[in-house]
C-alpha cells in the first residue's frame, strides 16, 4: 500500500482479485474431501482437529492484521467488515495451513519421533528415486539401541533425504518465472507511465503471481505424482518471482516518483512531494506485504491439488515388518 491512505478502490480491487481466484481454488477442498483423506493415510481425528485449529489461528491472525492496518490508515471500521476482509484475504492461507497439516500428518508415519522425521523428509518420492529414502528408513528400523542413537541417525540422514532428487527443472521454472515477472513489471509500468499514469504494480502483484504459482505447483505435483514435487517447483518459482518483481519495481518506483510524482502501486498522489527514494521504498514495501504475503499459500494449494488429482503411482516399496 502506498504511504498515502489506503483507498477504498485499492481494497475493492484486492477483494475482486481474490474473488476471481476463488473459483479456481474451489477445486481444492473438493479434491481433498476429508473422508477420503482419512481413508488414504495415517490421518486421525486429532489431525483434523489440529488442521481446524490451524485454520482458526490463521484467520485470527488475518483479523488482527486487517483491523490493525485499517485502524491505522482509515480509522474505525465495523467488526463485520474486518471479518469479511479477513475471510476474503485469509482463506487461501487458512486452506493452505489445513492442507499442510494433513499432508505432514500423512507423510510422517512411524513408530516414534525419529521414524516420523525420516518418513516425512523422505516422503513424496516415486519409483527408483525413493529407494535411498526407503534404505535409510529400513536402516533406522534396525537400530534398536537408545532413542538418542536413533534420533542422531535420523537427524543426520534428514538433509540428504530432503535434498535427494532435486533436478534442474525447478531452477529452470524459477528462472523462467522470475524473468517473466520482471519483464511484466517493467512493461506494465512503462505502458502506464506513458498512458493514464494510474499505477501498474497492483495489477502485477494481485492475480498473475497467484495463478502462476498455483499452476506451477499443480502441474509439477500432478506430473511427479507428489505434493513434494509440486512444492520443489513452486517454492523456488515464488522466490524467483519475488526477486524479479523487486529488482524491477524498485527502480520503476523511483522513476515514477521522478517522472510523475505518484506511487507506482496504484497511481496515488502523496500528501507531500514524493522523492525517488520514497517511491522506491513504497514499491519495496508493497511487494513484500501485499505481494509476498498474498502469494505464500498458492504453492501449497497448487501442489496439494496436483498431487490429489494425479494418477496414482506406487511409492518405492517400503518394506513392511
Amino acid at each position, binding site marked *: 500500500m502506498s504511504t498515502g491512505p489506503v483507498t477504498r478502490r485499492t481494497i475493492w480491487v484486492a477483494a475482486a482479485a481474490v474473488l476471481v481466484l476463488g473459483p479456481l481454488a474451489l477445486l481444492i477442498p473438493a479434491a481433498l474431501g476429508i473422508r477420503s483423506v482419512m481413508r488414504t493415510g495415517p490421518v486421525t481425528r486429532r489431525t483434523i482437529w489440529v488442521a481446524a485449529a490451524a485454520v482458526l489461528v490463521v484467520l485470527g491472525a488475518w483479523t488482527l492484521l486487517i483491523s490493525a492496518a485499517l485502524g491505522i490508515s482509515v480509522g474505525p471500521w465495523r467488526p463485520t467488515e474486518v471479518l469479511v476482509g479477513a475471510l476474503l484475504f485469509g482463506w487461501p492461507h487458512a486452506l493452505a495451513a489445513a492442507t499442510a497439516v494433513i499432508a505432514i500428518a500423512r507423510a510422517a508415519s512411524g513408530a516414534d519421533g525419529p521414524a516420523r522425521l525420516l518418513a516425512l523428509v523422505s516422503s513424496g518420492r516415486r519409483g527408483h528415486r525413493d529407494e*535411498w529414502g526407503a534404505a535409510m528408513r*529400513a*536402516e533406522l*528400523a*534396525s537400530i534398536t539401541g537408545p532413542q538418542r542413537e536413533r534420533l542422531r541417525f535420523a537427524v543426520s*540422514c534428514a538433509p540428504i533425504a530432503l535434498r535427494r532428487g532435486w533436478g534442474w527443472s525447478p531452477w529452470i521454472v524459477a528462472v523462467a518465472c522470475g524473468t517473466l515477472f520482471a519483464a511484466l513489471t517493467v512493461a506494465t509500468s512503462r505502458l502506464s507511465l506513458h498512458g493514464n499514469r494510474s499505477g501498474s504494480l497492483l495489477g502485477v502483484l494481485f492475480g498473475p503471481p497467484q495463478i502462476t504459482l498455483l499452476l506451477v505447483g499443480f502441474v509439477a505435483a500432478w506430473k511427479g505424482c507428489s505434493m513434494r514435487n509440486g512444492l520443489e517447483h513452486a517454492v523456488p518459482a515464488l522466490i524467483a518471482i519475488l526477486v524479479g518483481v523487486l529488482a524491477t519495481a524498485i527502480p520503476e518506483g523511483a522513476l515514477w516518483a521522478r517522472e510523475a510524482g505518484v506511487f507506482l502501486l496504484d497511481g496515488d498522489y502523496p500528501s507531500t512531494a514524493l522523492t525517488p527514494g520514497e517511491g522506491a521504498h513504497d514499491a519495496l514495501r508493497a511487494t513484500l506485504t501485499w505481494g509476498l504475503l498474498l502469494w505464500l499459500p498458492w504453492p501449497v494449494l497448487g501442489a496439494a491439488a496436483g498431487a490429489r488429482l494425479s494418477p496414482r503411482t506406487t511409492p518405492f516399496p*517400503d518394506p513392511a*515388518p
Partner: protein
Amino acid sequence: MTRMRRPSPQTVAILDALAENASDWSHGYDLCRLLGLKAGTVYPILIRLADRGYVETAWEQEVPQGRPPRHLYRLSAAGAEHVRELRRAEAERASWRLPGAGRRAIGDGAIAGAQS
C-alpha cells in the same frame, strides 16, 4: 594416462571398508559405526558410488520378524578396479615423497604418518 581425481578421506575409508569385505554385503549403519562417520556423511558417498557403478546395492532377502529388510552394499567389479587404481596412484604418489613425509594408504586402513 588420465589423471584421477583424488577422493575424499571419507570416500577412501568407505571404499577401504567395502574392499576388506569384498565378497560380503555391508549395511549403512554398520559402516557408520565401523568408520566412526555420521550417516549424513556415509549415505551421500554410498549414493554417489552406487550412481557411478562402484557399489552394488541389494535388499536383504532373509529378514527377521519385526523389522523391514535392510539395504545392502558391496563393491562391484568396477569398484574393485577403482580401488586398485587408487592404490596404484597412492603408491606412485608415495614413491615421490620423502620417506616419512606422511602417507595415506588405502587397503590396509592405516595412515602411516610422519611419526612412524
